[in-house]
């Protein structure tokens, strides 16, 4: 039997089916959470961001056009909420350089920690694009649509993000040596 599409689940959830809504949640929660984690660099913040994004998305289901893909819409909410919370943290506690966040990746595999930490060290704009491209596998065109930016800007941010990561890796190697 064919699994229902996201659009069908949205229609059923809107009609009051909690099962359909739960199915939609289980399909998209892990990736949305991972994205929030990678953008914020923090597990506790990812919990709140992803939960809040789903609350907002579900509360706005009646306004969602089910002919459009659900995931990019959700991911856009996650990106915006992550950046909002990082900004608000800077404003509230006066963190000088929230652009370069200190990721908490102690629970990641040992060989990946340095790279994940380096991703956290990127500027938010580049970090978001890198996470969407390599963490979630979105194409540059899809990222451009999701973020409402020209494709050229996405390519440029990707290239600069990778360049930054190579630089940070080199710094890390020098420190280790």
């Amino acid at each position, binding site marked *: 039997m064919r699994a229902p599409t996201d659009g069908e689940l949205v229609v059923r*959830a*809107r*009609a*009051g089916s*909690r099962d359909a*809504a*739960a199915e939609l*949640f*289980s399909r998209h*929660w*892990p990736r949305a*959470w*991972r994205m929030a*984690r*990678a953008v914020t660099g923090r597990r506790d913040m*990812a*919990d*709140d961001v*992803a*939960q*809040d994004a*789903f*609350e*907002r*998305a*579900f*509360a706005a*289901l*009646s*306004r969602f056009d089910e002919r459009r893909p659900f995931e990019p819409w959700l991911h856009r909410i996650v990106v915006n*909420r992550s950046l*909002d*919370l990082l900004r*608000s*943290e800077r404003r*509230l*506690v006066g963190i000088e350089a929230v652009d370069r966040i200190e990721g908490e*990746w102690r*629970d*990641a*595999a040992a060989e*990946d920690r340095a*790279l*994940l930490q380096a*991703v956290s060290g990127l500027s938010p704009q580049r970090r978001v694009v*890198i*996470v969407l491209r*390599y*963490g979630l*596998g979105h194409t540059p065109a899809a990222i451009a649509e999701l973020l409402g930016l020209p494709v050229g800007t996405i390519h440029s941010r990707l290239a600069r993000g*990778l360049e930054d*990561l*190579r630089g940070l*890796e080199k710094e890390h190697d020098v420190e280790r040596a």
Partner: protein
Amino acid sequence: MSSELERDLERALGEAPGPDPGVTDRALRSALEALPSPADTRRIRRRRLALLLAACIAAFVSGGVTLAATDGRLPGIGPALTPARPATSGAPAHQRPVVVAPGEAISALIGDRGLVVTARRARTFTDRLSGFASSPAAFYAIEARAGHLRAVQAATGRVAWRFRVAGTPTDPVWAPFPIRVAYLLHGRRGLEVHDIWGNGTHDFAVHASAAPVAPSWRWDSKAFAFVRGDGAVVVHDVIGGRDIALHPACGLRTAAAVAFAPSGGRLAIADRHGHLRVVDTTGHAPALCTTVARGLPSIGWIGANQLLVGAGTILSRIVIHRVGTGYDATATPGTIAGLAASPDGRRIVLALESGSRMRVLIAATPRFSEEAAPLRLLRTLADQPVAGRGPVPLSWL
């Protein structure tokens, strides 16, 4: 062609640890709760249709009225030919009383709804709140609900942060420098006092046994007072983490309200039996004892030397002189359930319970020249059926 770095990124980000199952369950529950009911969805669609219809009718009617008024001629567009006359009705701006001055904010929890009133707008916050408070100047408001605390931008309602708690938080109070929030938590172990940073991180359990009395911050935001489960008042130093319990005095054993003065170190403590004690926590002045009306007390300071205490239907004013105190009182048209004074002391906000109604109103601070002087009402903020017994948390920052 993908580089080694790109492959490493795909692996590292793709295989990064996932969410905890407990978090997933909670998120699913809250997401399902946020789902609008089918009736809501139908209502939204109907409302949209009705709005569209109303807009069409309004355009049709206003067009018709305009044409009728201009004798079938289309109205001109551009500057008016006759100079506009100044408005003559109403009091001149300089004579109108300022109810809420720019930069000030009143916040209240009325029933289970939050209310923030500034010079420009009044905004209500979603229902089912167990606690509510606005930050100074109403940049943020903190909403307490079973299971979490949430800070929202007061102007837009956008969530700034959210913090999960194991229980129901109540009585959040923002420090004058909005870097911390003190609150009470009704958890499995009873009522606790907590202190959390203004960005929703670094939550500290200050004391494991508290009385249901809203904490009060000292002007410098370095300490706050709360009432312990046994009724004793404790001043908690948030910098050093030290607790100083005040010894009982003035016949006051179980405090029902505490309030720090807006400057200096004076702390007013009142109980339900009409005992009032003012302690200088800096130790520079001896403690004062006096009595006010009996009932659940609410305290509001006017500067550092004058305080108002509302209990029952009596509003008392205590003036602290260099030697001794002055006292006078006036009656209010209802039982006082909450009280706060404006920063300049000229206006007060009162929650008055009368019959089955709860009114929250702004009044000019009474002159106290005669008993039962009528309150000069400036504005009614709420008038609704009484929802639950107990104090109405009010603040005017």
